[in-house]
């Protein structure tokens, strides 16, 4: 079934149609809880209140989401980093993307490294505090983590595939008893002739620097920020798809790969045991780990 959440397209597929309504209820309950904790575009969410007040007594849900983000930061040695928000805002992405799409902004961004260490969390007391200048956007890891959580919750009932905004988590068998067929695209336009893979369990995520682009002082920029510099990423890789045991890890490494660049990204992903497919600037495809040969639907 097709759904939408957080202004993103989403879909939910179950092997056993008899539990479809239960699965949808689980999907909505979990996404609502995550939204209350970490929706940056809802000023009443805990995350929004934290970014303004600089300190909050956080819910268990928020702490769980912070843990997921912290894991993404740790796994990627800081390359996938929720603390890049100040840099993203400085480059002009401080409003709905439709308002900056195809525009050339006159800005002089004053940016620096992301300060994840400026987030202080007391997990027992549920207290979260931010250092001066630190702003958080947990959206990326939260989306992937939500897919995992929904899939894990539904999995005891039936095989399931959950997709939110292009991040996918699958558990159990597909309706035909085999693997789940997941299409891949480095843009938001998808079609039947694109590449796809079969996934038995885990997650798949794609990051691209070719979407959400705009100009600043004539220079083309994008929404993927290098946490070390505070600048939009460039380089030879334009899009990276990663499969991993969880959607959270796939998401973290697909984002980090764009930051690391061609030379380091695929070897690092392989070293962690995951698989990847990267699209280069010239359109060529390179892969890492046990990625299957390209297969398209009939």
């Amino acid at each position, binding site marked *: 079934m097709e759904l939408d959440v957080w202004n993103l397209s989403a879909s939910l597929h179950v092997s056993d149609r008899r539990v479809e309504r239960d699965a949808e209820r689980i999907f909505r309950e979990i996404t609502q809880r995550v939204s209350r904790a970490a929706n940056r575009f809802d000023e009443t969410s805990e995350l929004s209140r934290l970014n303004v007040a600089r300190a909050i007594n956080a819910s268990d849900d928020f702490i*769980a989401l912070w843990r*997921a983000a912290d894991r993404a930061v740790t796994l990627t040695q800081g390359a996938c980093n929720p603390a890049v928000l100040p840099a993203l805002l400085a480059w002009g992405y401080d409003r709905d993307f439709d308002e900056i799409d195809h525009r050339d902004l006159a800005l002089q961004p004053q940016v620096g490294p992301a300060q994840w260490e400026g987030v202080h969390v007391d997990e027992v007391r549920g207290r979260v505090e931010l250092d001066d200048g630190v702003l958080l956007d947990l959206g990326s890891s939260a989306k992937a983590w939500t897919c*995992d959580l929904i899939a*894990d919750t539904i999995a005891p009932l039936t095989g399931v595939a959950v997709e939110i905004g292009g991040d996918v988590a699958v558990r159990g068998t597909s309706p035909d008893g085999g*693997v789940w067929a997941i299409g891949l695209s480095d843009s938001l336009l998808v079609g039947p002739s694109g590449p796809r893979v079969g996934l*038995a369990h885990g997650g798949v995520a794609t990051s691209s620097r070719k979407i959400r682009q705009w100009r600043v002082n004539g220079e083309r920029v994008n929404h993927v920020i290098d946490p070390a510099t505070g600048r939009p990423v460039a380089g030879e890789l334009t899009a990276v798809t990663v499969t991993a045991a969880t959607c959270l890890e796939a998401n973290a490494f697909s984002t980090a790969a764009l930051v690391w660049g061609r030379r380091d990204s695929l070897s690092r992903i392989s070293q962690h045991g995951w698989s990847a497919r990267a699209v280069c600037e010239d359109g060529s495809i390179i892969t890492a780990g046990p*990625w299957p040969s390209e297969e398209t639907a009939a």
Partner: protein
Amino acid sequence: MRNRRTPSARDRQFDRVRHTAQGILVLAGVAAGTGVGLIAHGAKAATSSTLPSTSTSTPSTSTTSPTTTTPGQVTTTTVYIPPTTVPVTTTTVCYSTPSGNVRCY
């Protein structure tokens, strides 16, 4: 021949019994208090994460199927199964894309 105890000897015996009993009670109290403390500590720790974390898998191991040990008790071994090709006749269920609103053509 049994020894006859004087009243003062009986009092000393009662004192020893009383002190022993008090010691046992104190030790039992400490143990119970410690137990309650541990339980309370555990309960506090448990409430610090209501949403189960799904991010604890270790890479480079291999299967993901839950393993049923006893009825009602399921332990999950998180494993990574690499992607595969799928038969061309298999329906694509969803798409992995950059974050946004996916449109089909």
